[in-house]
């Protein structure tokens, strides 16, 4: 912005023209940059609408044929053109529910460890390492689950659980491969831990220290500070974090399809193979021959999309008072 250019000094009229031109350019620039920013924002908004539309569009033949009964029907027989998502929905619920039940408490405990227990220098190392778990590609985690974890569980863990707690139906007879709902759940547990842990760590950091110090000064032990101050002030955020983790577990296709063993029955035995909505798409879509088969997999996608969007909306709604993005407020 050279205010006093030599040209302006020589000819006043010329200078006025220049500034008029600049004004015009500025107006154009202002509008232009606003317009492309707006365009980008509309594009992002349009994308989600388009994705939703296209998925429903792809599912249309199956929706027409099976209607809402698809959701609860438990037959999935591509050769006979009969499809229902009941088994898949059950498998999805069991694997993600298990992952959340096991991973949630562990992740919250890690959050507490990082904020309240670990010295700063240790937390600065452990925190990023836990987040690194989320950076491992799901296909590699699934491959590890297939080659290393599944045989290990099949040899050591599953027989032990079956022998000691076999009277509970979920710990049934182990299979020979180790590919099971149990293995898939453990892989999902590994995937949800970093998500919930990093959000709850940020939450716990936001708890006012004067409250904690006050409780400690009144003689509360560390656990009582957590129980009485830290957890109650962050309940909303922690629940929201768990729902986000659940959403991640529900939608994971690759790692689950690698270790769940592609079963097609509803069983209470965790050690039996199963399948989930997302895993079924990953496993069967590339080889799907009939239009109806593809459309049915798209229908699974619709169910997944609806559950996923609801989970995210719920998490946003519950955790509205807290921004899990970090230092920035909503």
């Amino acid at each position, binding site marked *: 912005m050279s205010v006093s250019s030599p040209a302006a000094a020589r000819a006043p009229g010329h200078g006025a023209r220049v500034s008029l031109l600049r004004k015009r350019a*500025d107006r154009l620039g202002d509008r*232009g940059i606003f317009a492309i*920013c707006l365009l*980008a924002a509309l594009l992002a908004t349009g994308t989600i609408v*388009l994705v939703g539309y296209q998925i429903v569009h792809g599912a249309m033949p199956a929706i027409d044929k099976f209607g809402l009964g698809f959701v609860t029907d438990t037959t999935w027989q591509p050769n006979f053109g009969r499809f229902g998502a009941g088994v898949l929905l059950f498998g999805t619920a069991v694997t993600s529910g298990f992952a959340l039940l096991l991973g949630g408490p562990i992740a919250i405990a890690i959050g507490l460890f990082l904020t309240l227990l670990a010295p700063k220098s240790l937390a600065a190392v452990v925190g*990023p390492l836990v987040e690194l778990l989320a*950076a491992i*590609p*799901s296909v590699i985690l699934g491959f590890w689950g297939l080659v290393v974890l599944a045989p290990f569980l099949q040899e050591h863990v599953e027989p032990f659980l079956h022998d000691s707690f076999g009277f509970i139906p979920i710990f049934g007879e182990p299979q020979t491969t180790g590919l099971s709902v149990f293995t898939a759940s453990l892989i999902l547990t590994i995937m949800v831990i970093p998500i919930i842990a990093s959000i709850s760590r940020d939450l716990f950091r936001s708890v006012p220290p004067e409250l904690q110090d006050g409780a400690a000064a009144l003689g509360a032990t560390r656990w009582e500070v957590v129980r009485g101050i830290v957890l109650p002030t962050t309940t909303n955020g922690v629940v929201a974090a768990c729902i986000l983790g659940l959403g991640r577990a529900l939608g994971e296709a690759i790692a689950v399809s690698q270790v769940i063993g592609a079963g097609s029955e509803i069983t209470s035995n965790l050690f039996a193979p199963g399948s989930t909505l997302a895993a079924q798409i990953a496993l069967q879509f590339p080889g799907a021959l009939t239009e109806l088969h593809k459309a049915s997999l798209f229908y699974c996608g619709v169910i997944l999309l609806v559950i996923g969007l609801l989970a995210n909306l719920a998490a946003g709604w519950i955790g509205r008072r807290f921004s899990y993005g970090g230092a920035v407020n*909503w």
Partner: protein
Amino acid sequence: MSGALIPDPTAPLTPSGNLRRRQLVSRSAEIAATGAAVLALAALAWVLWTVVSRGAPVVSLDFIFKGYPEGVGPMLLGTLAIAVYATLIAMPVGVLVALYISEYSGARGARALKLILDLLNGLPSIILGLFAFIFIVAPQQKQTAFAGAVALAIIELPLIARGSQEVLQLVPKHLREASDALGVARWRTVLSVILPSALGGIVTSTVLAVARAAGETAPLILTTSSGDVKSFSINPFEALPNVPTWIFKVSEEGSETGYAEAWGMSLVLVFIILVTSLGARALLARSKRKLSSS
């Protein structure tokens, strides 16, 4: 008579009764929390150790740079190409959305847009694969790397936009005000003051998004799972071989030589992803600190 009220001066100074119980509970809670952290680190160590110990014997220069079956160069190149195309699509849109949120939309618009970005971020990646399939692959009747790149771009978009927007919001107010006071037009301020000071953060956010997208498999098995594994290509309008779908294919087939190659590829991919995301994280933290302190 008063003997019961006066504490025994020779009693040891350790808590007893209720206090002892409370301290025990607290102590076990501490141990449990530490145990949880150790458990997560153990899982990470186990996975990484497996990848390194089984991948390292396979990886060599030939493995990285030669075509199949001597090496897996085409898959690595394909993964790189798809990630670059995805970023070319996602980065401009993401940065512009971030600019819109930080400069133009009001508080309400910002909230709505952030919600939309969060919803995009929460979409299961297999859904984006289905989307790219029916939107791009099905009409053309063939798999293309471009279709995969579009799906990955949708994964990267919310990450880039949210990351950039957080950095843009940290640009100090006084910089804008100084620019305004000099009579600088808004767009010049945006281009010459705001964007440059946030550039570091924007670039590192993008790198993080790329690291996340590079390992995504679900969209690619529906859009670019085939491809010539013998020759090197970066043509976006044909199916490109890539690391994630190859590992997925191998794990479905279950052959021993295939496993060895897959471990080698896992090692290369994990190494690249971990190094870039750790580096980008450190740089991002630094540029955020710099912005907040200035």
